[in-house]
């Protein structure tokens, strides 16, 4: 098992190399001169040239890329063009805010998604099932930012119950400011979770071992909880993991709508101001988060399904150990 985890961590290296490579070159090809962005329109040609040399912009692209990689290994993601603060420091500064929002959003998604998904599957083709399917279709289709705007119109502007902008500092204001963005993020994710839970459960419900469980005389509640849900969990965990990985990278639209000081907004602002090292750093961080959550999901599989666990064991063996 530990070998498997180590293997997976090592496999993240090529993924990150690929991500940095692609993003680095795309950003290098975007029009606009970083020196001019930093010094402004009024700067003289000499000043611009000096800045370019200082930033190493006159070096060939590949050299710049390798320099960037070398710095990255040391934990240095460069400094922001806009405010001369280290990119890594800014990302780490914003990440907790995004993490809070992501956790709250995923909680909303789970609390709505799992129970409705279960009910929907157990009462397939009833009015309840049809309603929840239509609602989840609406939930999937509705753009996040639009729902966010509607929610803040109603609860912030009209009713004045909750703040529409920013993030509270103290615990209670923080909770209050969290409600609307978390619901905005959570409903979208909940719709996916409902559909995943329902379809996965429907597959399990028809399995023979469910008949075996019922033939033991178990109450339906236990059959659902112990036999159906655990077997249906893998696709649900996958879906939730993907959603969570995305949210951890920052929800750009939702964070912008609610002025949430997280990674998503940092990213949007940096793109708008052509702050290339900042964008690059944020994207790499998102990729790391996403791969990491995926790894956690794969490890969780092993705890749900013993068949997967035994596969991991085999996958962790080197040839030497097999012979021994």
């Amino acid at each position: 098992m530990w070998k498997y985890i180590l293997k997976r961590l090592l496999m993240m290296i090529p993924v990150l190399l690929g991500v940095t490579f692609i993003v680095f070159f795309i950003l290098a090809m975007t029009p606009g001169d970083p020196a001019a962005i930093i010094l402004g329109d009024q700067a003289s040609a000499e000043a611009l040239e000096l800045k370019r040399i200082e930033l190493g912009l006159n070096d060939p692209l590949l050299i710049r890329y390798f320099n960037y990689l070398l710095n990255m290994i040391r934990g240095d993601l460069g400094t922001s063009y806009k405010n001369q603060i280290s990119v890594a420091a800014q990302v780490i500064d914003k990440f907790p805010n995004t993490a809070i929002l992501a956790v709250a959003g995923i909680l909303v998604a789970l609390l709505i998604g799992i129970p409705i998904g279960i009910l929907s599957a157990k009462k397939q083709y009833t009015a309840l099932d049809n309603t929840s399917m239509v609602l989840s279709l609406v939930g999937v289709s509705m753009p996040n930012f639009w729902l966010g705007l509607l929610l803040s119109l109603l609860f912030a502007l009209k009713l004045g119950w909750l703040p529409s902008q920013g993030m509270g500092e103290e615990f209670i204001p923080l909770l209050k400011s969290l409600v609307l963005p978390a619901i905005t993020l959570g409903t979208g994710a909940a719709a996916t979770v409902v559909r995943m839970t329902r379809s996965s459960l429907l597959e399990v419900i028809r399995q023979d071992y469910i008949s075996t469980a019922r033939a033991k005389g178990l109450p339906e509640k236990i059959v659902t909880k112990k036999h159906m849900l655990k077997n249906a969990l893998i696709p649900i965990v996958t879906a939730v993991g993907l959603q969570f990985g995305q949210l951890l990278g920052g929800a750009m639209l939702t964070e912008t709508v609610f002025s949430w000081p997280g990674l998503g907004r940092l990213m949007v602002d940096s793109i708008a101001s052509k702050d290339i090292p900042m964008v690059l750093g944020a994207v790499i961080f998102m990729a790391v988060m996403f791969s990491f959550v995926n790894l956690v999901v794969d490890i969780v599989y092993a705890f749900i399904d013993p068949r997967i666990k035994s596969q991991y064991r085999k996958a962790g063996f080197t040839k030497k150990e097999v012979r021994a």
Partner: protein
Amino acid sequence: MTETNQELIRIEDLFIDYETDDGIVHALNGVSLTLHVGETLGLVGETGAGKTTLAKGILRLIPDPPGKIKEGKIWFEGKDLLELPEHAMQEIRGQSISMIFQDPMTSLNPVMTVGEQIQEVIRNHNPELDKEELHAWSCAMLEKVGISADRIDEYPHQFSGGMKQRVIIAIALACNPKLLLADEPTTALDVTIQAQVLDMIRTLKQELNTAMMLITHDLGVVAQNCNRVAIIYAGEIVEIGDLRQIFKRPTHPYTIGLLESIPSLAKDVERLNPVKGMMPDPTDLPPGCKFAPRCKFVCERCAQRVPDLIDIGDGHMVRCINSKDTQSYASTRE
């Protein structure tokens, strides 16, 4: 075999339908059966005849929708199972009446150890037991079906098909049920394993004095294991009697056909001799005798009304209006 004439379960006029988009499937059409304490009844019929529906119907495990138990009574220990509330039914399932399902590969929960799965049924019906007692009981069950108790913490994927079926049998017999419904318990197994598993079921049921309804389409299995035989066709019992009555004096044309279709070792047979034709579409059953379209002895009266199940002597019942002719045919057959 221990045999008393004490009645254990009596099914009266059971009708079960499946309401599908393509129409109503009449799976059971008035099945009546009696099983006695300790007896083994073979329920024989081809695929789709309603064998599994009958077994699941007794335990009220027919998925609804689409399945509906339309009418009938199932008397067990003085109570009509069809009238019982769900929680009372749950007490009966796994405790008084158990079921073994067809495919051992898919009948065990893949994410629970076999020990947990055996313990679950014991705990469900004996909530007063503590952990050690449960463990000891489940180990004993595992040993009883010939699996070493140190494999109790293993998962189903670590067992072979025959071993899984043994675990399923251990689950079914754990609470010492009075009636075991075995739905083709060996169909999915290798022939050598089949014999082992059947031997084991037979020994255990004798030891525990459990009555069994053995569902199968293998007449050889019936001959070795059963006291009585019921032949089911298109949701109706067409013939029922003692093992000897059915094998020596088969009377319903379908039973005769089934027995004739067994290839003989003594004779040089070029081709198999099947019962010609197909079972009627259960959404659109013919009026009158359902076997009439395939029957050698068919006459005009056959299509007019469903023949009654009549006693032709010593509890040997046949649903055929030409039973005299068919019997004389069967006796000249050899």
